[in-house]
């Protein structure tokens, strides 16, 4: 039994079958990559995991509990964090505040009226936030407005916001898109380290094969909403079906 078990999930948008009978099992503490051409339904699948979409049929179990029908914030409190394909951050707030908010969410739950204490007095959380900013090399940007960051920095910030919560399952939707090569390599190292040291299971969607092959222990190839194969990176590399799915796409 994996920590995440997706069984028989279908999702239609009008006439479009975005997900067709998807089965997926992610083992605890592993890094599982989902790859596939544009429009394959990768993001839609993640949306079904975090409560943004409800599948038409099928079940999604996280650590033995169903996530279907729960609100996004409840699912996060169960231990699933997500990095979005287009960065979702608090643009009007500073980088530091962006990190502090998930810290509070983790410590205090989904709602707490702490209207009289000062944020500045929360030294333990501040320290935790500083540390994660160091980890993603953004310490010197702590007082910048998040909206003024570069695209790559926004991504790293969002990742830091998820990591600081120490989720049990981290979902990453193209975390390195728009990043410079050096930043991509840093991100790979960071994710590797986090996966090993903090026992965070990761499910990563990525087009950059360098990232996929550096990180993933298992890979699922999705094409037109259906899993084509699921295997180890070595076997995926030589699989003719995978070549076909990608070649088929590149001819467009």
């Amino acid at each position, binding site marked *: 039994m994996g920590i995440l078990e997706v069984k028989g999930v279908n999702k239609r948008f009008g006439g479009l079958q975005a997900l067709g009978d998807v089965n997926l099992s992610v083992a605890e503490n592993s890094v599982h990559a989902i790859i596939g051409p544009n429009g394959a339904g990768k993001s839609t699948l993640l949306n079904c995991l*975090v409560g943004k979409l409800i599948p038409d049929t099928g079940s999604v179990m996280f650590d033995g509990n169903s996530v279907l029908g729960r*609100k*996004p*914030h409840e699912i*996060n*409190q169960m231990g699933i*964090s*997500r990095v*979005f394909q287009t960065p*979702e*951050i*608090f*643009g*009007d*707030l500073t980088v530091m*505040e962006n990190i*502090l*908010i*998930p810290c*509070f*969410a*983790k410590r*205090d*739950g*989904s*709602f*707490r*009226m*702490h*209207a*009289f*204490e*000062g*944020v*500045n007095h*929360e030294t333990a959380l501040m320290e935790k936030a500083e540390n994660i900013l160091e980890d993603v090399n953004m310490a010197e940007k702590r007082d910048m407005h998040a909206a003024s960051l570069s695209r790559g920095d926004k991504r790293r910030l969002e990742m830091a*916001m998820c990591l600081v*919560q120490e989720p049990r399952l981290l979902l990453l939707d193209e975390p390195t898109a728009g990043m410079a090569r050096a930043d991509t390599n840093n991100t790979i190292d960071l994710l590797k380290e986090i996966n090993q040291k903090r026992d965070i299971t990761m499910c990563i969607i990525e087009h950059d094969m360098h990232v996929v092959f550096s990180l993933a222990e298992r890979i699922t190839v999705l094409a037109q909403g259906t899993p084509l194969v699921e295997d180890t990176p070595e076997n995926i590399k030589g699989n003719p079906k995978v070549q076909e799915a990608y070649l088929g796409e590149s001819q467009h």
Partner: protein
Amino acid sequence: MLGLNKKDAGLFTIVIVLTMLAPFILNPFPENSELAQFNAGYPDLMQRFVIFGIFAIGFNILFGLTGYLSFGHAAFLGVGSYAAIWMMKLLTLNVIPAIIMGIIFAGLCGGGVGFVARSRSGIYFSILTLAFAQMSYALAYSVLTPITGGETGLQIKATDSPLMSSVPEGEIGRANLFGLEMGSSYELSVGGWLFTFNAGYYIAAVCMLIAFYLSIRLFRSPFGMMLRAVKSNQQRMNYTGLNSKPYTLAAFVISGMYAGLAGGLMVAMDTQVGPERMFWTASGEVVLMAILGGVGTLIGPVLGAGMIKYMENIISKINDNILHQWFAFMPDGIEDFMVFIIHPFIGKGWHLTLGIVFMLVVIFLPGGLVEGGQRIGRLFGRKKRAEAEAESTAKTPAE
């Protein structure tokens, strides 16, 4: 100081000093000088400054932090007033229970209205709050006449005999704080100047200072940060494990309670209330105050409230005769021409002046008066810094 950081403590100290010395500061001109009509240091107006300041601070907690624009906030002002006056009619003429009752009732109404309105966002939220406020107005105006006194509203009458206050037969009870009457004033005349220290003003001012202090604490708290997160990105908030709904609702209730405090204080000052206090124009006014002063800033709403109340009371008093006096030094034709030009902007035309000021502020100072202040501050700051730099560069070669 009081758990505030240096900058906030400085701001709070300035506000304390200004409110306490307001009777002096607002009366800069001698009694019988021509400029005396610009004096704002009379009790009635000073009370209005601080009471509307409270109203605007509360409104800003909702609008400035969460971005939810309530267009019906005057309803809570009215509810607070009606609750307070009933307290005075029935229980005691002491203002404290009345004010507390105003806060509680407005908070409860805030909870109800907020719960329903919060199900929509953006313009629909504004429309829903507006609809609620107009419904409250209609209720107070006609349907609930036995409770609200209908069109004429409620006053304290000679026939009222509050349970815990002894009012002499046939006399109208007066609001007090443990015997200190709201209307009592101490007048100090120095040279040509007359300064009035009014008990009601100081009580309202202390309430305003407490309300202001609490709002600073709220702005700097994790809760305040969450409210700004609501405004910035609710989607991210929800996927970060936070439920944005109770946060917005709590902000709504808190700002309703601020309005209730303001409403209660209004009754404490003039012991009367009418349904027009809930009319939609009153709700619109507080929106203007917040925007004029600076949405989402600490002091902005108070400045905005002060500015609007000043214009409403001072510019509206200027008439053509006064203008003729001012321009008397000019040749007759030009004098008449000047009066003709300015005439639409004074007296009843003060709304026109307000409209123009408002437009100028929104266009040139989107951050309101506070941004204006900051720009001036930066201008001076830059000069200072330039001087300092000039000095340091002058020194370096010598080293």
